[in-house]
């Protein structure tokens, strides 16, 4: 394999019903950093149907070039249709790096493509850097977040990775940026289209996105089963969202869409309350990048205090109602 014939940083742009997903813009931001180091271009690969009008948006967020694949076959995500389209772009344009969001779409498409391309794919990277030899260094948690590993893919191209939503930061939208937009026409082989979508159902609870919250009030086992009502009240006065540790989600007290941690979501709010959360490594992996962390826990040796900025040793079920009261009064006095 002639590695030097591969260049540029590609980002798979994920849209759902024509809405570009936040994770794709975050990846454009990261791709911009990587491409600047390499002295190469950021190229957005944008499949979908009736989406071409949005291509310019991707340039504002960091792309130098948008490869738009606007086809009825790509109206909604199906593995084979998308694999064929993106595979043809990759084999024709030979990128050095391809990034995907670690979503149910990116984690379905990425491995299928890696097998078709016979190249490596590193899942759920938390850090991407360029080495002195211009290889991509992909760092990710392993063993449930107990260990970090830096992975390289030196002898194969492209080097591919997925990154979870909320891990990278998108650039500020820059309306002065300019770039090139090209249409790409794949040759589809419909005989391989064997999976049919019968229906897509949206569930109300799926709409909450804790990764977008500025403040999270997060509860663990120590918040007590009755404690979640109190947590919700605190969240309300702070205009915050409620989230939870895995133990609480497994116990059925809170839905999985609100789970923070290795098997849940990665969050980085301005303020994170860890209430009755001991701080298992799996949980820390999902929240330690928060700007400010306030932890309350009975056990003064709980690992959560290793990452908290402000730690209170005490009983969550007693402190929270008091705090909610005081905050409500403060709020009322400012009106």
């Amino acid at each position: 394999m002639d590695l030097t014939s591969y260049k540029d940083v590609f980002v798979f742009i994920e849209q759902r019903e024509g809405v570009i997903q936040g994770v794709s813009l975050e990846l454009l931001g990261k791709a911009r950093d990587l491409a600047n180091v390499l002295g190469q271009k950021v190229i957005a690969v944008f499949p979908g149907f009736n989406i071409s009008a949005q291509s310019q948006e991707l340039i504002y967020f960091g792309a130098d070039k948008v490869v738009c694949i606007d086809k009825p076959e790509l109206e909604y995500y199906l593995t084979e249709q998308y694999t064929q389209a993106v595979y043809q772009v990759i084999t024709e344009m030979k990128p050095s790096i391809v990034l995907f969001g670690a979503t149910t779409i990116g984690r379905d498409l990425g491995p299928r493509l890696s097998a078709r391309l016979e190249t490596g794919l590193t899942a759920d990277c938390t850090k991407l850097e360029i080495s002195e030899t211009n290889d991509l260094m992909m760092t990710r948690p392993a063993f449930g977040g107990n260990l970090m590993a830096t992975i390289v893919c030196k002898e194969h191209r492209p080097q591919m990775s997925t990154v979870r939503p909320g891990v990278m930061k998108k650039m500020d939208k820059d309306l002065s940026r300019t770039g090139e937009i090209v249409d790409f026409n794949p040759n589809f082989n419909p005989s391989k289209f064997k999976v049919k979508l019968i229906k897509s159902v949206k569930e109300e609870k799926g709409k909450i996105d804790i990764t977008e919250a500025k403040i999270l009030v997060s509860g663990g086992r120590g918040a007590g089963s009755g404690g979640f009502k109190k947590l919700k009240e605190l969240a309300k006065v702070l205009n915050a969202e409620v989230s939870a540790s895995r133990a609480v989600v497994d116990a059925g007290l809170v839905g999985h869409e609100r789970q923070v941690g290795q098997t849940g979501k990665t969050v980085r709010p301005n303020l994170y309350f860890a209430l009755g959360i001991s701080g298992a490594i799996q949980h820390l992996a999902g929240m330690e990048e928060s700007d400010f962390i306030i932890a309350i826990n009975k056990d003064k040796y709980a690992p959560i205090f290793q990452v908290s900025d402000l730690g209170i040793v005490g009983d969550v079920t007693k402190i929270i109602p008091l705090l909610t009261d005081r905050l409500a009064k403060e709020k009322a006095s400012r009106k």
Partner: protein
Amino acid sequence: MKIVVCIKQVPDTTEIKINPVTGTLIRDGVPSIINPDDKSGLEAALTLKEKHGAHVTVITMGPPQADAVLREAMAMGADDAILLTDRKFAGADTLATSHALAAALSKMEWDLIITGRQAIDGDTAQVGPQIAEHLDIPQVSYVQDIDYNESIFTVKKKTEEGYQVLEAEAPLLVTVLSSANKPRYMSVKGIVNAIDKEVKVSGVADIEAEESKMGLKGSPTKVHKAFSKGVKSAGEQFEVEEEEAVGIIISKLKEKFII
């Protein structure tokens, strides 16, 4: 119907602790289990077997002691088991693993291949889709439910927003979520039978796999380095009466302009 379920023996990562002095993993005494998503995949297969009749084979790749998870699967109700074990498989990344499993699967008959969505020791969710690609069959990942009617599989796939219902004819590969079901326990009769049953052991030569695609040699990704996370320095900690604690929090929130 013939179903093959791919399972993996993993350390129970919820039991792993870090040595605070050396920063290394403490693996001693950590139990080995069937990966949870795979166990739910097996349960889904056994449910299909009860409803429609099926022959369920479990397959794993791993060291000789991975025999234990195959025995457990047979005690739950799997009909037979295959262990892929060979030093040449060692050090495989997801792509090399998928080549080995696909090579073994290509010598078998199946209508449905089930894998777990991901394994808890790696969380990559890659091997299932990669196997499907090598075998040139369609895949549906993140599966919550599978049903079968007149040679068509109807599959419920979980998404961020809710779920999708998809249909495909056999052959198909699905990757199943641990939330799909509650796996059954081993039955006493099952355990007794599983002890006597034969586990078919295969190496690289038996499955006629291309050696260049196996193990570390066949892995495009390599671990450059592994390390435990540097611990961020802890902030202030207070052990005070509740009223005072609330006061401290409030003044901190004001300082940060949150209220």
